């Protein structure tokens, strides 16, 4: 009785998952299809759309910019998150609530409220139209701080006591006890950071003047933000394909690892 119910249920679950995968994945499938299929005059497999998209803008350069921006931000946010997260998890000190609140504010404040002021700051530092200028307001990530703080909090005190008894000082303790536990949280935060910054559009648009520092999403906007005439959908699909294919590849290759990371982190214990 329990067996058939279970089997039936498994089949149903499988069906539901497949349906969800199809619906959720359909737009991506369409993008790939429309990129390589022909438009009104031609039909069949074509690289013409990709060529057209690449003609509009130097997508190669854009992709390099994006990789640099996303990679550097990942590193900076990660390191800062580790340090600040650790301090917040491990120590008490006067003003701790205020400090925590400051980092939490980073998660909460909407972009448009601070857009102009941030632009003026970056401008004052003469960092307009540079990758550094794009990255600067994002260098500290409240989500990284929170994620790592939780990960460190989850480490039982006994482990640290044991290490201390072995004679390690704080740095050693950090390296041997806390750091190894941080892997999953790091991957989880990495996914959040990469997906956000890979697709962040408005801020880089405002800050960049030329192709020098432009990330690839702005190149996409060149195709999409038509002012007067209607859209050329195949070109848009091609541009989108250029933007998402690298990330998709990483995702496909690393699916299990990414999933595993999320399923063993965020242990709110």
């Amino acid at each position, binding site marked *: 009785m*329990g067996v058939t119910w279970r089997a039936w249920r498994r089949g149903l*679950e*499988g069906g*539901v*998952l497949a349906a*969800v*995968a199809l619906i*959720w*994945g359909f*737009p*991506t499938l*369409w*993008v790939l299809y429309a990129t390589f299929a022909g438009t009104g005059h031609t039909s069949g497999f074509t690289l013409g759309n990709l060529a057209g998209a690449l003609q509009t803008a130097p997508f190669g350069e854009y992709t390099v910019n994006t990789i640099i921006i996303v990679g550097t931000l990942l590193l900076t946010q990660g390191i800062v998150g580790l*340090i*600040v997260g650790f*301090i917040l*998890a491990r*120590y008490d*000190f006067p003003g701790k609530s205020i400090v925590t609140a400051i*980092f*939490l*504010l980073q998660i*909460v*404040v*909407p*972009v*448009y*409220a*601070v857009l*102009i002021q*941030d632009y003026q*700051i970056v401008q004052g530092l003469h960092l307009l139209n540079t990758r550094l200028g794009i990255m*600067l307001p994002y*260098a*500290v990530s409240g989500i990284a*701080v929170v994620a790592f703080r939780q990960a460190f*909090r989850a480490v039982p005190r006994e482990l640290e006591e044991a290490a*201390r008894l*072995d*004679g390690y*000082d*704080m740095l*050693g303790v950090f390296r041997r006890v806390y750091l190894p536990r941080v892997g999953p949280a790091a991957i989880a935060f990495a*996914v959040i950071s990469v*997906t956000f910054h890979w*697709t962040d*559009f408005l801020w880089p648009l405002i800050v960049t003047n030329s192709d020098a520092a432009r990330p690839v999403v702005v190149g*996409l906007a060149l195709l*999409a933000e038509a002012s007067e005439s209607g859209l050329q959908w195949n070109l*848009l699909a091609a541009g*989108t394909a250029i933007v998402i294919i690298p990330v*998709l590849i990483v995702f496909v290759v690393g*699916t299990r690892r990414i*999933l595993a990371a*999320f*399923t063993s982190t*965020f*242990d*709110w*214990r």
Partner: protein
Amino acid sequence: MSTLVEPASQASPGPAKAGPGARWLAGPGVRYLLMLPPALMVIGFVVYPMVQTVIHSFYRLDGLGRVIGFAGFGNYSALFANPVFMQVLRNTAIYTVFAVVLSIALAFALALLLTNRGIVNRLLLVGIFSPTVMPTIAAANIWLYFLAPQFGLVTELLGKVGISQANILGEPGSALGALVALFVWKYAPYFTLFLMAGLQSIPQNVREAMRTEDPHGWQSLRKVVLPIMAPMLAFVVTLAVIYAMETIDPIYVMTQGGPANGTNLVMFYLYQLGFNYYAWGPAAALSALLLGGLSSLSALSLIALERRAFHWA
């Protein structure tokens, strides 16, 4: 809460296993030093501009955002006096509730399904999680295409199931629904990841017990899973609310707030006020309100988190 632990190395007689500078490194001064640059960054790029905006909200501002006089609550009353704003509030409330509830419910279901299955086809996984990597601009344009009246793919599908002449984006109600659908499509997989993590924190023995004592799972869902997941759920719900209230890109691309302001949501309205109408005073007031609302929400949920975080020790 965490207790104060002073580094023992200064008193411990054991062999030092790090360089001579390590002692100084562990001191309290260093902590402040290490936290200072990041804190300053956040203060510079986030806190200070917000404070400035809140202050400005009590002044009259010209078309270029410069202060030209005191306004008291004038900007706020101007904001609320505008019927469009009231509609925006209503739209945003409806949208946020539906978007959050639907995306979290779906994410939870997906999390349960995926966790129980163990090995899931890689293709399925990529399909489910693909919306996360597509930039909203692109996704919005693609959905615009799918939803085109008469000939968009979705419209044709609807025609086949009996809903003819559908014009999803052309009517305020269904347009808002389309935006909700876009939100769920984009974020449910994202939240699924978090919730899957939350499910993992159920200890193995408890899972065994659930499996034997409650094969159908409903009881354990209510009595065991949900309470354990509460902190994670609170966190994800907070994220969902923040993301929902900050929705703007799809509106930009698909509806421009229309038809007839039916999809004008609060972030888009903020953009309109500032960059289209040059009404920087009311814009500042709205920013201040948003800040207040969103921060209190986050604070509440994070307090809930702190309380529960040590529940299942």
